[in-house]
């Protein structure tokens, strides 16, 4: 082979070599594993923590509420739509052990008690005292606005999908809805 060609090949080899070495430092690990992007980006996104828990877990601990809900008109709504994200709540009570499952009997009597005793004094509704620490407590919205967010008469709401009420013309204009409609089974 002529000397020039050998030299040329050599120079090329060196440049290609340098190119690939430099490239291997700048191109991140896992680049191009699945396409023109970092394969690890997919894994990182997949590893993010959830905030809304698996609804099956709620049902395991709160059998009574879940049962009520499943038979009522609110069956299509899932717990966390009303109660907010429950992942932390779940973890907290799972660590406490299943034995701590809420005593449904005492809970429900308290609720019915309050609804009877505070029939007329709506502002001082006495709620079931939650024993859950603040950070892990789920919201139990009992205000009218919460229900009206879905049920207020609105021309855009399909009649078939949801029954709506005219706030100015539905029984008592001040009373909380849950006094007459238990949230988990609103028509009972």
């Amino acid at each position, binding site marked *: 082979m002529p000397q020039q060609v050998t030299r040329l090949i050599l120079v090329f080899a060196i440049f290609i070599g340098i190119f690939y070495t430099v490239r291997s430092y700048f191109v991140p690990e896992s680049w191009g594993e699945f396409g023109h*992007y*970092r394969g690890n980006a997919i894994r990182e996104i997949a590893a993010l923590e959830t905030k809304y828990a698996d609804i099956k877990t709620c049902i395991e601990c709160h059998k009574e509420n879940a049962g009520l809900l499943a038979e009522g008109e*609110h069956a299509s709504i899932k717990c966390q739509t009303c109660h907010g994200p429950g992942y932390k709540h779940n973890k907290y009570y799972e660590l406490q052990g299943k034995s701590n499952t809420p005593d449904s009997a005492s809970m429900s009597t308290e609720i019915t008690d309050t609804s009877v005793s505070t029939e007329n004094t709506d502002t001082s509704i006495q709620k079931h005292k939650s024993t859950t620490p603040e950070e892990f407590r789920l919201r139990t919205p009992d205000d009218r606005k919460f229900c009206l967010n879905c049920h207020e008469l609105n021309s855009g*709401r399909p009649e078939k999908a949801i029954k709506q009420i005219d706030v100015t013309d539905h029984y008592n204009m001040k009373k909380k809805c849950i006094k007459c409609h238990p949230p988990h089974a609103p028509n009972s």
Partner: protein
Amino acid sequence: MPSSACTQFLTWFTMNTEKDKNKTRRDFFKVSATVVTGIAINSVFVKPSMVQAENEKENIKIPDFDKWYGFGIDIDKCIGCGNCAKACKIENDVSQEPFYFRSWVEYYVIKDDETIKIESPNGGIDGFKQSVPPDEIEKSFFVPKTCNHCAKSPCEQVCPVGATFLSPEGVVLVDKKYCIGCGYCVQSCPYGCRYISPITHTVDKCTMCYHRLKKGLPPACVEACPTGARIHGDLHDKEGELVKFMKEHNCRVLKPHLNTKPKLHYNSLNEKVI
């Protein structure tokens, strides 16, 4: 690997120079070139992780090449409660400021005089108030919107650094470590589904709750919908919920003429919706 090759070469080289003092500079270059090429070939062909990671517990693959996810939205069932938008913000740590949304709801009012009023106060999170008197309304409805996860997404094509991509499941994702926040993709999205996050200063968008899918859970917006107006599923699964929904209803996508091949299928979508 490359480092061991280097040490080998160095020992060999020093040994040789001791034996033969007549080594020329040319010899040195020759050997160097061979070694550098060797290292290069090494670094190109041996990738650190050739094996596909697998979540063994539930046998969920990351990523899963057999799936092709999409959304279905039934306008006939949407009551405009805004729970999907709210849940999305919570689940994905989206800024609570009313300018940033991965998922939001629009309220369309087509008036008698054929003008259209579109509103989305805080993305619908606080609910909607009927702002037009009933006798002026011809038709009104809610349209939930989110990323269309286009199969031919313009946003993916304009990214200069390869930070946004279509996952094998058909989910358009953003690599936040690689995003430089240039905003080209925000401009290119015909559906207005991207924004620059005030928290990370990178672009942010719907991930179809990829992290939830990989734990066997539905996306947060689907979980939060009280009427089942949102359907999430695998378009390859012919028996699946989404394919069934699309068979039973006449579905449409937004802006089909752009040929971005969106995977957000609306039932009863009014022609006036943009």
